[in-house]
């Protein structure tokens, strides 16, 4: 068992930090970027493609770089550190991951090739009004056969849905189960809007919209489940990056901000709370690193378990750290001009994308009687 990055991984981290960290080193740049559609910087997206970051998880045959979850996690952590608004998690990790897992040779080459090259934004239209992070669809239904299908119903919220060039859509199949389809968004009714953290989401209406099955078609519930688990683990990595910077910004503020004639770190109660934030962060980093390794080597069942465990811990920690970061900053932490509140906002969004702590607590409670203990060393 080894938690250290090898040289190539370190080089990747440095390269991504050089690009993204530099781009958003001034928080005002991020603020201006999210203020205007599409909510991220297309140039930066292209540079990420040039760096090979967009194709990391995909095989070289599909136009990717043939790396794996560790490398993807590195990118996610770096994005989290500057809360970069580029839709990496949704487009590359979630939607791209589904195509990699279930797409036909042609679909993979076409869709993932364009995605890796930065030429196409992909989105996964899955959440439905009233749904709660299940791997199934019910309000969007599919009808048809062979390669000729149509979809009807509403997906909302769909991250990056308004900007997406291609949609992967989940839909209830006539015979039961949930299928995955490739849809040209031009044929849908799309309304985009900002999310709380400056991202973008959309309502997408399907009204007999033409759709092509992803891969061989049929029930893809387990593919979606694993795709969501993967996204959970990578989202947790992104949260770790954001929490790390939140903590350091808070510690730095405590040593510089004066009240009552002294810097805030004169007040032991505040220092102790910062120490508790550090504890939350370290524990989370450990479990998220571990879950990322499980993503490399584990079965889908092990991945599901690790995803829930990482998500539970990350949910608890991101609330703790996000709330305390604002509180310890005081009034300035409430303002949009200053960065810290936006970190909390982003952590709140990440927490609710694929199931919050309570959701994963339920999942884990359902099977807690099945084992005597949890042993990460097997």
């Amino acid at each position: 068992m080894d938690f250290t990055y090898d040289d190539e991984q370190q080089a990747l981290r440095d390269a991504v930090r050089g690009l993204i960290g530099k781009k958003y080193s001034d928080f005002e740049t991020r603020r201006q970027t999210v203020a205007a559609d599409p909510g991220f910087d297309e140039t930066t997206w292209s540079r990420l493609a040039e760096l090979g970051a967009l194709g990391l998880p995909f095989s070289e045959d599909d136009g990717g770089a043939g790396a794996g979850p560790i490398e993807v996690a590195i990118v996610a952590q770096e994005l989290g550190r500057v809360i970069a608004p580029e839709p990496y998690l949704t487009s590359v990790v979630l939607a791209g991951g589904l195509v990699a897992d279930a797409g036909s040779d042609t679909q993979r080459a076409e869709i993932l090739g364009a995605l890796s090259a930065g030429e196409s934004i992909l989105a996964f239209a899955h959440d439905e009004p009233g749904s709660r992070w299940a791997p199934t669809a019910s309000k969007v239904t599919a009808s048809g056969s062979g390669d000729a299908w149509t979809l009807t119903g509403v997906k909302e919220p769909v991250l990056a849905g308004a900007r997406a060039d291609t949609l992967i859509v989940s839909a209830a199949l006539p015979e039961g189960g949930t299928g995955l389809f490739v849809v040209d968004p031009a044929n849908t009714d799309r309304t985009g809007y900002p999310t709380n953290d400056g991202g973008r989401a959309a309502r997408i209406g399907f009204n007999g919209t033409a759709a092509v099955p992803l891969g061989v078609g049929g029930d893809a519930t387990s593919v979606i489940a694993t795709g969501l688990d993967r996204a959970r683990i990578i989202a947790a990595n992104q949260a770790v990056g954001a929490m790390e910077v939140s903590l350091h910004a808070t510690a730095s503020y405590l040593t510089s901000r004066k009240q009552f004639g002294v810097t805030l770190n004169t007040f032991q109660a505040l220092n102790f709370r910062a120490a508790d934030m550090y504890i939350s962060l370290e524990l989370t980093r450990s479990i998220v690193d571990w879950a990322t390794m499980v993503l490399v080597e584990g079965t889908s069942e092990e991945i599901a378990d690790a995803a829930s465990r990482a998500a539970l811990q990350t949910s608890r920690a991101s609330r703790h750290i996000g709330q305390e970061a604002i509180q310890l900053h005081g009034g300035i932490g409430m303002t949009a001009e200053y960065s810290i509140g936006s970190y909390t906002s982003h952590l709140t969004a990440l927490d609710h994308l694929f199931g919050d702590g309570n959701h994963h607590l339920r999942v884990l409670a359902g099977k807690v009687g099945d084992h005597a203990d949890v042993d990460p060393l097997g």
Partner: protein
Amino acid sequence: MHLKLSPEDAAFREELRTYFTTEIPQEIRDAVAQRRELTKEQIVTAHKILNKGGYAVPHWPTEWGGRGWTDLQRHIWHEELQRANVPLPLVFNSSMVGPVIAAFGSQEQKEKFLPATANLDIWWSQGFSEPDAGSDLASLRTTAEYVEDESGARFVVNGQKTWTTLGQYGDWIFCLVRTDPDVKKQAGISFLLIDMTTPGVTVRPIELIDGGHEVNEVWFEDVQVPAENLVGELNRGWDYAKFLLGNERVGVAPVGATKRVLASAKEWAGDLVAEDPFLAARFVELENELLALELTALRVSANSADGKPHPASSVLKLKGTELQQAVSELVVDIAGPGAIASGAGEGSDLEHWQARSTPAYLNLRKASIYGGSNEVQRQIIARTILGL
């Protein structure tokens, strides 16, 4: 010790309930229930209706519109307002500057300001905090220099205030200003009333992390303020501020409003409450803590005979804001994937409360910072009550 309301208090409550639910326009109460941002007009309308019924400033001296209620009646009034989704009387007018003018102002000031303040004909803003004077309010730097010449006696004000809530609507602003820079910091502060239309006053909105603009910076550049706008004595402003902040903390626990949101959350959650034991448990814990808090408010109000804030009012502020925040967090979780959709508009298939859930949660992070942060409250409890 006994449990029930007396028949008189029960009748009193019924009277309030009827007035609030029949006199205040439904659309205003709906907006509160749906956690929408209120317009200036809505706030003013509700306030004026309350004032007409004698419900805007019941805690003022009777001479100026007060009602001479018992503490329990004031508690009932405060809870029933929130229960009926009535916007509370504008706090800057009714709980802050009004009581200060009534207690320390000159007869001229009282006559000029109190009726207009009670009726929200003047919208007051608060000018206390400064960028470098947060919890350490007494370190404020905005100066008011006394000048007396052919144009008369006046103060010339220079400096910057911040976190001025709803300052964009303000007609007048009450400020703490430094009038003697040479003494211990609390000793050189005065309490000044400033017409916000005076040249040199600039209001700049601050965007908050929920995207709203409810707070502002207010700049003063050589603003000429007539000397008669000084409240009470020169350099005694700190005492008046403490009086005001004591008033502010009484009834500061937003129990009724939080209960109302929690009850709404239960409706929004629907079948989930029965399906998800952990969600049910969160409702139980929050309901129980709110019950304990409400009972504490009743117990404390029943015991503060001398009008001074009971030391336990810090408990109300601290726990009240914590629960307010916890309920807002619960609503985000109930909103599920829809919690991120803060920008969803009319065409959205998501519920309005889902879209509002995260901005409301983020906005309420302020509750434990403003109005005496929860750290300040802990300090008060430790020092004043426990002798630490």
